[in-house]
């Protein structure tokens, strides 16, 4: 249609001009329009892109001449700007005009200014340097008495404004909030919204004015302020609870038809999502009978809201009805949204999916890929062991059709999630299906898929499930299927897939009995010679060949391969080939090096390379220079002017035998890592290489050979391939059958598909359970607030007891008072503890980060109450008594432990009978976790038990002597556990549960979890500088890093002080610009730190006997140094 119109218009160029509103002198208009018009027409007349480019370049150069000519009037400039904008829209660079746009905005009269501002807002972006030139103009226009000028300035400010210049205009814009014209107020509010987005700190002080805007008499201003509130509430939902009333009033007015702000329903709803009042929702849900977008949009938000708030049955029912309306709508957009809504709610309410199953099936075959994708997303959420085959098949079908990379990555991730990532409970029904599906995933997903997927897949294969024979079958099937795939001619597989194949073939080819390793090697060799295979994949392949070589009888291919690649130009390949060559010469060694099926065993690597000591000593005795690690060399280069000044502990260098030990931990793996660097550190390749190292040399020296246990397991494995094929994907067979059948059967087929898709979704299913669990937690949410409040009180009581402020324990429980006192208490607590530390005057105390830890724990309590206006809090009198009791108990308990520093008690879980709080005691030799269980009910608790889930990184032991057999009503008992660390980590969660019996024999369980940080296990290590020097040389693992210091701690002592306080490092000595520190990881892993300051850079150098500890500590140091 436009073509025709366009033609008529070219014929009658002046015609459309008459349409223009606003009037104005026709002559000026014509001249302006004809210039742009002729440009536009010129472009549309052209046929090729090339011609267009030529024309535009011409136009641009003439424009360039015009704008820079001094004779150009502002009016002409305005026309030029319009043409420049047009050229830039077509994708050509018009940057020479930017400065002129700013000039135009500055100098022009209103009309020209308007175009100038428009050009600026289109040309420039927030961080463009020219924008600074605009600031003055904006300030001037904001002060103008002309409304339109002010409007223009506000408009440009809310679109682009440099963050650092906000203070220049902020007061002016604030003033505009009181302007008499609503349009100015509205724009000012939006400008402030923009500022809030880019620099929230700068507008903090005017939050109170936003409240005024919310209550503005003009609807537009009120609506604009909703944007700000939506954002702020998202960031801090509890801070604005008091505004709920206002929001509800607005909503009421909207619903009542008093306000025309139809659009802002959705914002309001999102705002109210946080503290929704059900009544109004019900009202809205019923009004929208008219089918316009707006009301439907609102409906959609309502449904979303209903499902995200505390569930209420009648609302859910209504929402379900609405979703039904959406899903069944013939309009495709609504259907899409219906599916989307279903996806949200399906985990809470799977029966809803059952209701609409036929629609979902139809959508699966919908011609629109977007609808299909949404349906798959929906199905993905309901995947379970029974319907996994069908769903995955549907996903694969979609995958084969789509070409967009983003979609592929997403979908492949989902399939893998169903099958592999979810290692605890894979849904795959049988081996053959699993491998074939993964093959399809790998071939389609190719090299764009997330690297975790192949890694996890291989791990799954290697680690297997519980059943060993089952695992072997899976592996065997994988090997067989890969061999078949490799036999196919002219098929190019993605590199990742080839890597997976080569690893599996290398590891598990021994399971085959038909094909000999030599044949497998031949196949791998063929791939190696293929040019389309990347060099990264080739290293995988050659690793596989290396693993297979000791099993092979004839070695022609291997020799050919060695011959071929020892002269390869790729150094990495050459290295591998040489390794293979040397190993190949000694088959016995090779066999012990590369045992069969050992990929899962952990390896202890002698990182200090102690086995080379002899070699190094020999070298040194022959006059070789001692080895210096890279960073040491660099450092020496840095301080070249004082070459002679060696390290402060340089003296003891001679005392130690050799300097070879200084080599950093990573060095033994160095060649490997650099060789395989492209392989992104895939565990498998590395482990292959490490295997070599381990079996040869261990800490004790040469290791005895291990017997390989080939054959034992491979006996029972062969399975006729046909029988496997029979299991493959029932859905395919189903489809084949149905093709023969008639049209009427198609319906049946769909129903069949439906039943296969929705199995396990009934009310008794696991999915439903999941939903229920969710609801339960919802139900508790509200109550828990009261509990938290109560525990907050116990917390403070604890504190009070230790400082004998016990008079406060019978505080009058009145709301206001409570709020105030709590704030006070927060402060007091801090004081108390510093007081404590003075009193006790124990050395260990002063070294620990007192204030910080406690403020963390205790300050959280007051914030709980800050938003407590909704709930009135009246604890029963008995609680007061219990608190008193409890405090006496706690104090007696604390007597024995106060000599150590400990954290504030924090409530970690509760229900209506008990509440559990925990705190940490940082003892010198361990971390003591104390859980105190308070029985809040009036009944006696029998046999309360606390159990900690086993955790990988900890050893948890119960401390005896602190448990009472029976917990009386309203009393507290404590459990003490000492926690030892097994392996360094940064942050871990320790979780467990408490189970108890009530008097009426009903038992219950309550789960909890506590965060533990590495710092909980770090203690100062007090040694002398001499010992430091000795230890330093004996440690092999070192890590070095430069950290930038903030200005506040630029001097070394203050930096070290920070480390001492926050990380509990012991400062041994400070020598000039260097410092020595030491700490230990419990139970007794020492770690030494050497610091040196250059300007504002702190060079940290860690050494430890543990290989990973330096890294973790370094991380903590960086965090501390950057954080402060």
């Amino acid at each position, binding site marked *: 249609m436009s073509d025709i119109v366009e033609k008529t218009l070219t014929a009658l160029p002046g015609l459309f001009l008459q349409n223009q509103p606003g009037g104005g002198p026709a002559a000026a208009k014509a001249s302006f329009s004809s210039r742009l018009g002729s440009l536009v027409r010129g472009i549309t007349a052209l046929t090729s892109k090339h011609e267009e480019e030529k024309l535009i370049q011409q136009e641009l150069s003439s424009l360039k001449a015009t704008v820079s000519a001094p004779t150009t009037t502002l009016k002409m400039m305005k026309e030029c700007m319009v043409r420049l904008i047009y050229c830039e829209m077509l994708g050509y660079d018009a940057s020479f005009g930017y400065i002129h746009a700013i000039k135009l905005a500055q100098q022009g009269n209103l009309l020209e200014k308007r175009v100038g501002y428009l050009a600026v*807002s289109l040309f420039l972006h927030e961080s463009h340097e020219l924008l600074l030139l605009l600031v003055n103009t904006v300030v001037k226009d904001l002060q103008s008495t002309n409304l339109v000028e002010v409007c223009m300035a506000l408009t440009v400010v809310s679109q682009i404004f440099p963050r650092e210049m906000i203070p220049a205009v902020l007061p002016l814009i604030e003033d505009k909030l009181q302007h008499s014209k609503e349009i100015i107020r509205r724009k000012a509010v939006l400008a402030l919204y923009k500022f809030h987005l880019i620099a929230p700190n700068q507008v903090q002080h005017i939050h109170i004015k936003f409240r005024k805007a919310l209550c503005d008499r003009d609807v537009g201003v009120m609506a604009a302020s909703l944007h700000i509130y939506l954002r702020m509430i998202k960031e801090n939902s509890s801070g604005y609870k008091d505004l709920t009333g206002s929001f509800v009033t607005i909503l009421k007015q909207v619903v009542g038809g008093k306000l025309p702000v139809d659009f802002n329903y959705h914002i309001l709803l999102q705002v109210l999502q946080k503290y929704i009042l059900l009544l109004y929702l019900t009202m809205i849900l019923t009004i929208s009978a008219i089918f316009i977008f707006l009301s439907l949009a609102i409906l959609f938000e309502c449904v979303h809201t209903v499902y995200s708030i505390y569930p209420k049955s009648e609302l859910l029912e209504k929402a379900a009805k609405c979703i039904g309306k959406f899903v069944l709508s013939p309009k495709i957009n609504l259907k899409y949204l219906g599916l989307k809504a279903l996806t949200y709610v399906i985990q809470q309410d799977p029966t809803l999916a059952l209701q609409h199953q036929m629609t979902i099936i139809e959508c699966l075959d919908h011609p629109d890929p977007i609808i299909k994708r949404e349906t798959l997303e929906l199905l993905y959420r309901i995947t379970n062991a029974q319907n996994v085959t069908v769903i995955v098949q549907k996903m694969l079908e979609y995958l084969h059709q789509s070409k967009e990379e983003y979609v592929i990555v997403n979908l492949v991730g989902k399939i893998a999630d169903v099958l592999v990532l979810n290692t605890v409970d894979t849904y795959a029904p049988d081996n053959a299906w699993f491998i074939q599906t993964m093959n399809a995933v790998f071939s389609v997903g190719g090299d764009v898929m997330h690297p975790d997927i192949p890694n996890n897949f291989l791990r799954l294969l290697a680690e297997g499930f519980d059943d060993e024979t089952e695992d072997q079958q899976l592996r065997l099937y994988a090997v067989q299927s890969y061999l078949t795939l490799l036999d196919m001619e002219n098929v190019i597989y993605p590199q990742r897939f080839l890597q997976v194949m080569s690893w599996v073939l290398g590891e598990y080819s021994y399971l085959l009995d038909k094909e000999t390793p030599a044949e497998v090697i031949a196949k791998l060799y063929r791939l190696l010679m293929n040019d389309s295979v990347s060099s990264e994949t080739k290293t995988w392949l050659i690793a596989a060949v290396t693993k297979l070589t000791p099993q092979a009888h004839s070695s022609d291919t291997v020799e050919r391969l060695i011959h071929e690649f020892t002269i390869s130009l790729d150094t990495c390949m050459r290295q591998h080939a040489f390794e293979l060559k040397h190993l190949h010469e000694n088959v016995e060694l090779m066999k012990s090096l590369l045992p069969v099926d050992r990929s899962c065993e952990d390896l202890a690597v002698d990182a200090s390379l102690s086995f080379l000591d002899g070699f190094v000593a020999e070298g040194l005795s022959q006059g070789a220079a001692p080895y210096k690690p890279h960073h040491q060399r660099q450092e020496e280069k840095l301080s070249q002017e004082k070459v002679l000044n060696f390290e402060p502990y340089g003296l003891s260098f001679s005392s130690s035998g050799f300097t070879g030990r200084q080599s950093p931990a990573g060095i033994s793996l160095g060649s490997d890592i650099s060789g395989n660097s492209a392989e992104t550190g895939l565990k498998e390749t590395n482990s292959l290489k490490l295997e070599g190292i381990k079996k040869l040399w261990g800490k004790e020296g040469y290791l005895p050979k291990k017997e390989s246990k080939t054959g034992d397991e491979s006996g029972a494995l062969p399975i006729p391939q046909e029988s496997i094929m029979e299991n493959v994907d029932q859905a395919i067979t189903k489809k084949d059958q149905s093709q023969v059948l008639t049209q009427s059967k198609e319906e049946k087929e769909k129903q069949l598909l439906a039943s296969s898709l929705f199995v396990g979704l009934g009310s008794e299913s696991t999915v439903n359970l999941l939903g229920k669990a969710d609801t339960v937690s919802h139900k508790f949410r509200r109550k828990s607030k009261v509990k938290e409040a109560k525990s907050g009180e116990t917390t403070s009581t604890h504190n009070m007891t230790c400082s004998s402020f016990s008079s406060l324990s019978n505080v009058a429980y009145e709301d206001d008072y409570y709020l105030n006192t709590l704030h006070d208490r927060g402060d007091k607590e801090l004081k108390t503890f510093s007081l404590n530390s003075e009193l006790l005057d124990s050395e260990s105390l002063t070294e620990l980060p007192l204030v910080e830890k406690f403020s963390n724990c205790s300050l959280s309590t007051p914030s709980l109450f800050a938003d407590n206006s909704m709930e009135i809090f009246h604890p029963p009198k008995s609680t007061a008594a219990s608190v008193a009791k409890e405090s006496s108990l706690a104090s007696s308990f604390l007597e024995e432990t106060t000599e150590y520093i400990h954290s504030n008690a924090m409530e970690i879980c509760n229900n209506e009978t008990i509440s559990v709080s925990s705190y940490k005691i940082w003892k010198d030799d361990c971390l003591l976790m104390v859980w105190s269980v308070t029985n809040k009910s009036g009944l006696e608790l029998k046999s309360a038990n606390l159990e900690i889930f086993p955790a990988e990184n900890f050893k948890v032991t119960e401390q005896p002597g602190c448990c009472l057999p029976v917990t009386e009503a309203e009393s507290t008992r404590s459990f003490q556990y000492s926690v030892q660390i097994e392996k360094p980590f940064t942050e871990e969660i320790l979780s467990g549960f408490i189970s108890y019996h009530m008097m009426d024999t009903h038992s219950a369980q309550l789960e909890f979890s506590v965060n533990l940080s590495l710092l909980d296990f770090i203690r100062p290590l007090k040694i002398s500088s001499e010992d430091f020097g000795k230890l330093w040389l004996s440690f092999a693992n070192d890590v070095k890093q430069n950290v930038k210091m903030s200005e506040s701690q630029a001097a070394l002592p203050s930096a070290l002080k920070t480390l001492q306080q926050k990380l509990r490092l012991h400062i041994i000595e400070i020598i000039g610009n260097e410092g020595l520190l030491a700490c230990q990881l419990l139970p007794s892993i020492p770690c030494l730190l050497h610091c040196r300051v250059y300007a504002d850079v702190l060079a940290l150098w860690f050494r430890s006997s543990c290989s990973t500890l330096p890294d973790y500590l370094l991380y903590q140091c960086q965090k501390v140094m950057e954080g402060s």
Partner: protein
Amino acid sequence: MQFMLLFSRQGKLRLQKWYVPLSDKEKKKITRELVQTVLARKPKMCSFLEWRDLKIVYKRYASLYFCCAIEDQDNELITLEIIHRYVELLDKYFGSVCELDIIFNFEKAYFILDEFLLGGEVQETSKKNVLKAIEQADLLQEPWMHSVLRE
């Protein structure tokens, strides 16, 4: 809203408004990809797209496609309504708008858009108010209006 694009059935860009700072290169890439994707879709297909991590809402009016990118939590239907309302505004202003009006007076189209949406959020929901603001500014070309508008 992250950005709004108007383009013709031939894939020619007619208007672009970016509410997030992006480099020119990125803008061009996004525009190219989106125009291709949207033009490839059939008329009966739904107006929403999931594209990268954004949601795209588009609608075709005669030969012109209006295309908006919104974030995940934004409502698609509201966006459709925004597009529709913008078209209505253009229609009222130009008097039965066609693509050519927008081509030859694109700066006017920008002015209207700026009065309607500001910084990616809806500024004014009332059509009447938007047009009033635009007309007021348009009238400024009459010199005598200057004195009238001064307070």
